[in-house]
């Protein structure tokens, strides 16, 4: 009889210990993913703040590019609206669209040498390039954290606890396919061009 009670007690303790450990590790991963997501939001907000300045600066030199300016402004509004939904899928679609209008804005700027020489424009360009860079790295970190978190809550033994304690799989921040298709120009190395 005592043997049976002790066995049950030991099994219960083991289960409790494993459960606590599993629960804590899920919370830890979810917090890391949330933190990664808030980093993305910081960079997106910075991007949205920089764009009106950039458009105004380019407008001063390139007066005949109204279509490009409107496209950027509209894409920015759409991206801000998508940001309010807090849904990674919608946000990534809207932000990728904004990214491609920005690229066409910079392509327009290429045609105006006096604009490209302007210090204000150069500073804005560096700020925006940096923001895009940070966004890209924050996105990768978020996706890696999300993948780890999703894998953990979908595999045994944690899957048993995930549902009742409200751990749900999170969406990825998708990369811009258009950006991937832009060929990398490299004059120094023959191995870098994706020819095969």
């Amino acid at each position, binding site marked *: 009889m005592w043997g049976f009670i002790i066995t049950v007690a030991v099994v219960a303790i083991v289960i409790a210990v494993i459960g606590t450990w599993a629960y804590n590790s899920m919370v830890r991963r979810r917090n*890391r993913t949330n933190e*990664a997501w808030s*980093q993305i939001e910081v960079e997106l907000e910075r991007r949205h703040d920089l764009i009106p300045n950039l458009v105004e600066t380019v407008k001063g030199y390139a007066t005949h590019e109204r279509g490009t300016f409107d496209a950027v402004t509209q894409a920015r509004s759409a991206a801000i609206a998508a940001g309010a939904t807090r849904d990674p899928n919608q946000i990534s679609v809207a932000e990728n669209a904004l990214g491609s209008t920005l690229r066409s804005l910079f392509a327009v700027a290429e045609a105006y040498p006096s604009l490209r020489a302007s210090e204000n424009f150069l*500073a804005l360009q*560096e700020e925006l*390039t*940096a923001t895009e*860079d*940070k966004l*890209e*790295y*924050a996105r*990768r*970190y978020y996706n890696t*954290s999300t993948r780890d978190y999703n894998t953990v809550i979908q595999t045994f033994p944690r899957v048993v606890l995930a549902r009742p304690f409200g751990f749900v799989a999170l969406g990825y921040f998708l990369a811009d396919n258009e950006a991937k298709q832009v060929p*990398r120009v*490299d004059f*120094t*190395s023959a*191995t*870098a*061009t*994706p*020819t*095969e």
Partner: protein
Amino acid sequence: MYEQIARNKRRSVLYVGLFIVVWLGAGALVGWLAAVSGNVDAPVGNDVVLGITVAAMIAALGIVVSFLSGQRLILAVTGAHEADPVQYAQLRHLVEALALGDGVPTPAVYVIDDPSPNAFATGFSPAHASITVTTGLLTLMDREELEGVIGHELSHIKNYDTRLLLIVTTLVGMAGLIASILWRNALLIRGRGRDGGQFTVIVIAAGLVFGAIAVLFGPLIRLALSRRRESLADASSVELTRNPVGLLRALRALQADEQPLARTNHATAAMFINNPLHGREGFYSHLFDTHPPLEERIAVLEGMAHGLTV
């Protein structure tokens, strides 16, 4: 690539273990010497244990010292100053971006005014770390190359190489200090008392043991460690930037450059991305090269770049 990182980690654990064994072994040896040449009645084991304990305490002291002032000391010795946020905007932005990608706190950014292109990272932990580049590196490299170099330095921080090097460098320095103190004292107290001669022999022998650590074994371990770690940081940098080409081009540019760095020495040389002593060293120095040849590292990166495109 992941396989390579795992292998590198295993090897450096081995080297660190070896360093600890030799360090404590030196303490044990001194204790044993004291026992066999001193009082015959006392058991030898006690003195050996005492020697090991003292060696462990000295090592602990060294770790505390490197934690408290190692980074500041190294930045001062190399003549680094904090990077101005406006003047070095691009550099700071790249460091911030890559730190985001790694999920580590943004390290402090320092600059050395020197035309020789080079970079290093230091710091006891990722939360208290710094990345330093020379002005020569900034003029030589474009954004993509700089990204590869910063990724390399950030990997040193993330993999705790900077802590490892700080501790090993401090301990090797302390071994040298102990050796010189012992030798000086051995001459001062010579011939005093009945066992004076024996005592002098022990002190000189202990000085020799620590001297050997300082000038021979310490540098050997440091070079074995940092050679491994350089390759590991290259691989981690590519893992982070997902672009072997940037670092590849950066290393090619460093290979083409032969200007030695002005303010450098053997203790700090191990930290830099490119050996800062090149152009002014002889055969003896090459024995203690802290970096694998650039050609080797370039070949590995070329393999990675090729693997991505096929």
